[in-house]
């Protein structure tokens, strides 16, 4: 018989080897899957960041066009608006989340100045090109908000994974570092119409 040939000691040794093998394979499997998880989130964060880039560029273009129309009207807001035009070079390549947040804050200021111009010069409300740009700008802002929320959602999960044991072992081994959130002033949340 198999057992009689090996003896009890041999059998125990085989069982231990099998258990150790299973453990090693499990650890390697877990290590690879955790590393892949980190890589997947890094890709997702990059995707979301490029979404922010696209939305910011679109918003920048639209605000620039709106500025061109309001130039004749908005002399008082000239400084802020000129600053936007100064950013014509667009968003620098490899901009970090912090850089993107700073650009977005500038664009928010420009949008506010344009809104002031609209309030002061009612003629603008009859300008169809301007109104179309305004509607597109609102949509671009919505896209930007979406990209920002998706980016932050990915960063949140990624950063949690970095800190939580045992995935932190893999993160430390590959020197993965925390990602920055895209910070922006949240628009005041409109009230949900609860009554019906």
């Amino acid at each position, binding site marked *: 018989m198999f057992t009689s040939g090996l003896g009890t000691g041999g059998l125990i040794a085989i069982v231990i080897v099998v258990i150790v093998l299973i453990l090693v394979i499990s650890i390697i499997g877990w290590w690879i899957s955790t590393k892949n998880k980190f890589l997947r989130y890094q890709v997702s964060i990059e995707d*979301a960041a490029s*979404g922010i880039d696209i939305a910011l560029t679109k918003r920048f273009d639209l605000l620039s066009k709106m500025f061109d129309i309001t130039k004749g009207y908005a002399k008082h807001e000239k400084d802020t608006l000129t600053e936007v035009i100064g950013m014509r070079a667009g968003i620098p390549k490899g901009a970090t989340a912090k850089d993107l947040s700073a650009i977005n804050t500038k664009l928010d200021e420009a949008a506010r100045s344009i809104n002031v111009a609209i309030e002061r010069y009612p003629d603008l*409300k*009859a*300008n*169809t090109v301007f*109104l*179309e740009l*305004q*509607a597109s700008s*609102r*949509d671009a802002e*919505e*896209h930007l*908000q*979406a*990209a920002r*929320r*998706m980016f*932050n*959602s990915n960063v949140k999960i990624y950063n949690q994974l970095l800190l939580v044991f045992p995935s932190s072992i893999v993160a430390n081994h590959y020197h993965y570092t925390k990602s920055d959130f895209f910070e922006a002033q949240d628009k005041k*949340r*409109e009230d*949900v*119409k*609860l*009554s*019906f």
Partner: protein
Amino acid sequence: MARDLVGPSDENVKSILNGIDQEQKDKLEKVSAESKNIYDKSKKTTIIVGTILIGLSFLGLFVDTMVFVVALVFAIIITIAIYGAGQGKANTYFKKNVTDDLVKAVLGPKGNYQSNQGWTPTFISGIKLFRMGNIYSTKDRITGEIDGVDFVVADVTSGNKTVTYDSKGNRREHTTYYFQGVVAEYEFNSKKVHGSLEIREDEGGAGYSLIYGRKDNVDFEDIAFNKDFNVYTKDKLQAFYIMTPQFIEAFNEIKRRIPGHLIFSIQDGRMIVAINGTHNNLGYSAKSKDANAALESIIREILPYKWFVDILNLDQDFGQEAVREAKLASLKSKLDSETNKNGEESDSIINSIKEEL
């Protein structure tokens, strides 16, 4: 999450009731009272006929116990059928004379109700929100326009009946219902959606999307929402674009207010709302204490469809209306200068364009 707030508030129901003019109200109350009358009469007939039939069935005891049992069963079946027919008659009378008026009172003049109409099977299988089998029925179609948003709603039942035979050759029927509820279609706001976005109330692993399976589920910042709903889409960025924090909050509120299992789908510029486990009665209910209670009960059934437009911002146009108005104003001024008239002619042209739009 506890569903402690179900249905529309008493205040809103009363405000609709108060908005109905006295003449119409008198008519509604008259019809409601007449429906109650028809129901009461049929109840009396049921009691009399039932008593006679059941009494007669006892005569069977003089012949044979089996004859008595068979006669009693027949007597009970006939009694139930008479009761059902009476209730059906009252219901049909009520629906024919009241429901359409009430739909108009809640939804405005464009509101319309047809008791024997519904959704075609082609439409339901096309939206792919629940399975279709060999059983299908639909009724109680309401159409209307709320704050410029077109919508249609109807009751739908979908299921599958299978017949099997056991080893002794006995026939066994088994029916599985996939969906018993209401399906509503709204025009979606001016946000463009590529493909589709599905928001399904979580069924503890039992429910899944027919389009996406259990994959492509997106999580958002709201923990309560993530726990209660699954959002399926191929485009994650688009999901965040549509599901704004305000929109997410609206779904949490809908879950608290609306009984039944909720499924929402945004596809081809429309939002489909399917609520499983609920249906519109929209007719006379014997449970209603008086005419006013019957009217209130129907208003309560119709109001949620109006509320969906408000809470989900389905009428939001993101400045498109202002652009249209400005374009028309500019067109009018051009027409005025070219025709050299006082503007009446161009007004009529502009109005016809507006109607076309």
